[in-house]
């Protein structure tokens, strides 16, 4: 039992049903539309993916920080609507390039997979 209790090495809140890197892609895409804070990102995530992609709020922030470390997004503290300051993320030039590349990859991959899936059905 103890192994699973609080093992730091394992990410407990890691979304298991998301393909590795997919969350990154989603976040980059969302931020590509407009800079926004974490809360807004979480809302947008729910809104666009509905219940299909369940991303817990707890795993959203580490993912954002990782993207920031990679240099794909950059953060800035700005006042939000009721004048409380919030951390706003926006895409960098590098991030935009990365998004293009990853999006293209994704299309290729998903097309290929759909193709294979259809083959099996036939």
């Amino acid at each position, binding site marked *: 039992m*103890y192994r699973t209790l*609080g093992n730091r*090495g394992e990410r407990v809140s890691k979304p298991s049903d998301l393909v590795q890197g997919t969350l990154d892609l989603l976040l980059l895409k969302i931020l590509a539309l407009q800079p926004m804070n974490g809360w807004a990102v979480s809302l947008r995530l729910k809104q666009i993916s509905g219940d299909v992609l369940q991303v817990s709020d*707890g*795993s959203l*922030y580490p*993912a954002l920080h990782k993207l920031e470390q990679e*240099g794909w997004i950059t953060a800035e503290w700005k006042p939000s609507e009721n004048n409380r300051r919030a*951390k706003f993320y926006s895409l960098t030039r590098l991030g935009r390039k990365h998004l293009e590349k990853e999006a293209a990859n994704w299309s290729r991959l998903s097309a290929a997979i759909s193709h294979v899936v259809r083959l099996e059905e036939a």
Partner: protein
Amino acid sequence: MRPQQWLYAIPLRLRSLFRRNHVEQELSEELEFHLDKKTEEYINAGQSAEEARRKSFREFGGLEQSKENSRDARRVNVIETLIQDVRFGIRMLLKNAGFTATAVLTLALGIGANTAIFSMVNSFLLRPLPVKNPEQIAALAFRQKKGALQNNFSFPELEDLQNQSSSVFSDVFGEQLGAGGLTINGKTEPIFIFYVSGNFFAGLDVKPYLGRYILPSEGSLTSINPVIVLGYNYWQTRFAGDPNIVGKTVLYDGHPVTVIGVTPKEFHGLFFFADTQGYLPFGMEQIDSSYTPDLPTNREDRTLLVYARLRSGVALNQAQSALDVLSDRLSRQYPASDEGLAICAYPERISRPQPDPDKTILKIAALFLILAGLVLMLACVNVANFLLVRATARQREMAIRTALGGTRFRLIRQLLTESILLSLLGGAVGILFGLSASNALSSIHLATSLPVLLNFDFDWRVFGYAFAAALVTGLVVGIVPALRASRRGVTEVIRDGGRTMSGSRSRLRTVLVVVQVGGSLMLLIVAGLMMRSLNYVQRSDLGFEPRHVLNLSLDPGEIGYNKVQGLQFYKQLIERIDSLPGVESASAAFTVPMGYYASMDSIDVPGYEVPAGVAPPIAAYNAVSPGYFRTMSIPLLEGREFTNADVETSQWVAVINETMAKKFWPKESAIGHDFKLVSDRVHSLRIVGVAKNSRTSGFSGPFREYFYQPLAQNYSSLATVQVRTTFPPETMTAAIREQVAALAPSMPVFDVHTMLQGLYTLNGLLVYELAAALAGVLGALGLVLALVGVFGVISFTVSQRTNEIGIRMAMGASQNIILQMILRQGFWIVSGGIVAGIVLALAIARLVGNFIAGVSPYDPITYLGVSALLGLVALLACYLPARRATRVDPVVALRYE
């Protein structure tokens, strides 16, 4: 990560690392914002504030977890953890100060021994010359007809090299050892100098500290340019660092010379071991009293050490190809002198003190690095054993850490941090040990007035080596305990309270101690062999009688005496000394047995056929005055010794040793036969006597061909006056000095010691003594470490088995049975170790064999004697804890559980 990304990442990471609180606070604030928004949403949906807050927390899914993952995403945890580990490690080490001190001291001994040995290796083999691009400097040597490698070239050969190898060498320069006297203000002292070619300093590319150097135009052998360049240390001591020295005139061997410059402090010349005190141009050799007029043209009068600087971009093997071509050409052009010539180039760094295809220095270095490495290994085993014990004691701690979420990797890292801290501390203390050891080594008395330079200073290489040794040590001693400490499951540990230990762990410790006993036995066997070898050489029959002889060195040339004056001086001095009470006999000789000066030449014996393609025979020789054989007590087997009638103008004569007589005249008496030196084809030497073989350098092996010439026919101004006395020889010093002063008041007398003391040189007993002392110290260290190991492992067994012993005793086992039980384990460890040690010693025996004399490296007496001794001491180390086991009180032992 791509470079552009670093642009973003580096500032962020630095910020995370150094403004940690700020970043932490921002993280909290960001998440707080999210939670507040969420709560707000729930409240708007009509829930109570409290309920809304709780719900949003739950939905978030582990706030702290998320924070930690965010921190991981920042990737500075690695460094933070390291700092944490180091802090914790220091706390743990301070908490167990006794353990820490023992472990640090143990490691310091091991690392110190290694550092000291390495500092010597560094100065012999690694430290480059303090010149520009030192890797371009090559030392040249040659073989003739596959004979022995020779280091000395003749002047015409140097010229050929200079003129015909410029495609690969930018400079070829030569130097010749010289000894003379330097007079300032009427006071003469010996000076150790080199005659150098004009391009010597340009070729080395060193800048003068003061003034200028000898110019290429001043280097010709045929013109006298009375200038001298001083070595830095000599200038400091003899001239008190006089800043206006340049331009001053001093007397060298009685001739005025002008000081033109001073070499930089770190430059000591090319002659390893000695700090060159002065440099004179080649032409100044003409004032030397042993100068022969055909020196510039005689291709076989080989006296020069030759070095070359590779052109930039030219590799040594390319230069070697060019030298092969040149050798061939010279061989054909001068068949009489240079037939079968093969000039070889060696990197300067591995040519100290001279190019050596046998790599003797490298072998010595390897041997002692192996021995010192072994000592370090023994120290490591001890510390690893300490750590294993501690690991057992800390199992509870580890289990709790695991339960709290520490991964195995994390625990191992923590434990390794501790052991590396320990070894770095050990390394720091070890460097101090090493420094004092190498200071002691570099101040060895070498029985010579030569300006000896044993510079074992610690430079970055030595420090780097010590650091690397410490780091590796830390890993080695830490890894096994760390792996083991972190291996056991929590439940297991908590159940048995970390008190018992599994059999395998105890087995590992036992194996380690067996290895330790083996290693220490090997060290002791090597030390034993070296001591027996020293004992042998100290007692060996040298063929002459070193007791009751006093040696005093003189050089009349130092005060300007020419050959005639010098010979007259020696003759008168010896007559005066002979008439002193207590003197049996006195004589003068250029070479002293085991001394630092020697002569050697190829010889030409009429009637002795040298097979085609084979080098002519080589013989070493000495120039001695009448009375020499009596003074040294070397018996003459045939013929006569030299007399005052053997002068330069009479028939040249020689006394040869038995070996030489047997080699060239096996069937008849050698008396009356003639031979020649190849460097002097003019004079025939007629054999007038055959002397018993005696040792001149080295103590073992077959005697080499050797002969003696009268000092009058092969004059050397520098000579050692030897006096056989009936009184203790050192008591005669003052009386003899008086006689020198009476004849020549300003004549310096140097290197005054008894012949027995004079045997302790690097060519004589000193090497054996040094080797025995070094091996002895390493062996003693190894022994202590192994005994600690044996004692430790047996004590530990006893303490682990206290309970069992108590039960056994309660069941009626006698003290004797308990004692036997414990000793049996000790016996197996020790005998296993002895077998391992003998195997190890046999493995290294061939290497050791190079450095011992008079005793086989497989000498059974040494092997058995040392093994028995070690076995006895080791069993004693077992006995102490075993006896403690017999004192176990069953009641206490059982209650203890």
